């Protein structure tokens, strides 16, 4: 979704007269062809539609190293140009080895997290062990695809430690397509952040250097903090606070890091 467009629900207000342009944009004519959830409405002006989706903004990322993963997300909840709350948690600790962070529409995120928690509990009761990271990654994909024709408007990143003790991240789209990678991000700041992660974590688009070593945990946390600070400067929907989870063999530790509140 283009950042310069207003919230789609603005179109449904009773007093809005689409024949009169205000604030420098025309109502009823926004259609982003690249956003699969922005359905073009050929309906007559002044008619009201129910728009089931809203983008509440926020940026999430997951970065993995040899034996650790860092999952982080900002906590600002946006609605149009407003900020209903500065603190909402987008991160959920699923097991001692897996953490999920989701951006998109907050209500779908909350429900998806609840559904996942229940599925994990059911698995634990039936199999008498916790779900592995690989199993959770497949489960999430299946849950998302079940709603192929009315998706959870969530853009997820899953990160953790696999059965061999290695750190891995998974990035998802809204209907469950997923990929196992070392570093991935999602949300309103995704296009600002992903190139930085590609370059600084996976050393892509750089001359090969055999002496260059993989990032360790603490330098990686510093990188994540810098990345969020930078994203927060340029993306209006990212800011306020960042929740950073470090997942290692010891378990999951959460840290809060302040961002600019503007």
């Amino acid at each position: 979704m283009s950042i310069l467009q207003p919230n789609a629900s603005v179109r449904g207000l009773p007093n809005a007269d689409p024949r009169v342009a205000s604030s420098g944009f025309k109502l009823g004519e926004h259609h982003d062809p690249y956003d699969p959830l922005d359905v073009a409405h050929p309906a007559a002006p002044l008619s009201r539609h129910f728009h089931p989706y809203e983008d509440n903004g926020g940026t999430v990322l997951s970065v993995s190293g040899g034996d650790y993963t860092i999952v982080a997300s900002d906590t600002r909840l946006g609605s149009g140009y407003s900020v209903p709350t500065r603190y909402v948690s987008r991160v959920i600790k699923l097991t001692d080895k897996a953490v999920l962070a989701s951006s998109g529409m907050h209500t779908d995120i909350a429900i998806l997290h609840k559904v996942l928690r229940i599925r994990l509990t059911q698995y634990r009761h039936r199999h008498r062990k916790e779900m592995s990271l690989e199993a959770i990654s497949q489960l999430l994909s299946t849950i998302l695809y079940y709603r192929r024709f009315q998706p959870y408007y969530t853009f997820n990143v899953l990160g953790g430690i696999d059965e061999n003790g290695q750190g891995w991240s998974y990035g998802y789209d809204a209907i469950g397509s997923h990929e196992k990678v070392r570093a991935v991000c999602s949300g309103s700041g995704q296009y600002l952040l992903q190139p930085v992660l590609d370059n600084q974590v996976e050393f892509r688009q750089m001359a090969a250097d055999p002496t260059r070593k993989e990032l360790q945990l603490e330098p990686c946390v510093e990188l994540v903090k810098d990345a969020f600070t930078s994203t927060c400067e340029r993306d209006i929907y990212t800011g306020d606070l960042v929740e950073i989870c470090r997942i290692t063999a010891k378990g999951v530790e959460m840290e809060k890091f302040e961002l600019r509140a503007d």
Partner: protein
Amino acid sequence: MFRNQYDTDITTYSPQGRLHQVEYAMEAVKQGSAVVGVRSNTHVILATLKRSASELASHQKKLSEIDDHVGVAIAGLTADARVLTRFMRNECLNHKYVFEQPLALSRLALSVADKCQVSTQRASKRPFGVGLLLAGYDATGPHLFQTCPSGNYYEYYAMAIGSRSQGAKTYLERTFDSFPECTVDQLAKHAVLALRETVSSSKDTELTLENTAVAIVGKGTNFVIYEDDEVKPYLDMIDADEEEQPAEAEPAAADAPMTDA
């Protein structure tokens, strides 16, 4: 006297106003091996004796976790118990999904009891042949409930069901006044001592790592099961007591508080 005429059908009363099929179902509970439950002001502890069909077989699991805050010990038909366990887990998950809080134990016990009652009033069904001891901690504190095949449920300070449970009940009746103020370790010791009263002289002559399982739930403690090697500290607790009795050299040591297992 007329039992045989009126006991074939679940939907037939006897002239004395009894449902014999339901009573026979409760006999099935008495055939299962013993389980003991004890409650203090902060915790509930279940101690169970696991039976094995033969030397080659494993010992039958008697304890199940239902949710973080509640677990169950079973006596009777294990397959029926599995159905009820699945039902209880589902009830707890549904309640937590809708209300974002753990299901109160009295409500859970009630829903299980109602489910048991349904099969005492249908000609096409038979009663559940399993008795449960539900142990849990909710907003109103620790609770111990018993459910019956009849569809009744009771709350207890301490209870034992299953085979040879009378010995355990006698021990509990003697000691339960001290339970409210007990620490977790003292309470566990009472539970295991009560369980020991149920071992027979012929079959399972003593409590061992293989045939004993203990579960604890309470304030600040999610439901957790201790069995096999993990149950050793609890068996050692009662053995230590026994060793010091004949010695009588250090009476003070016998009363010393146990460290956390």
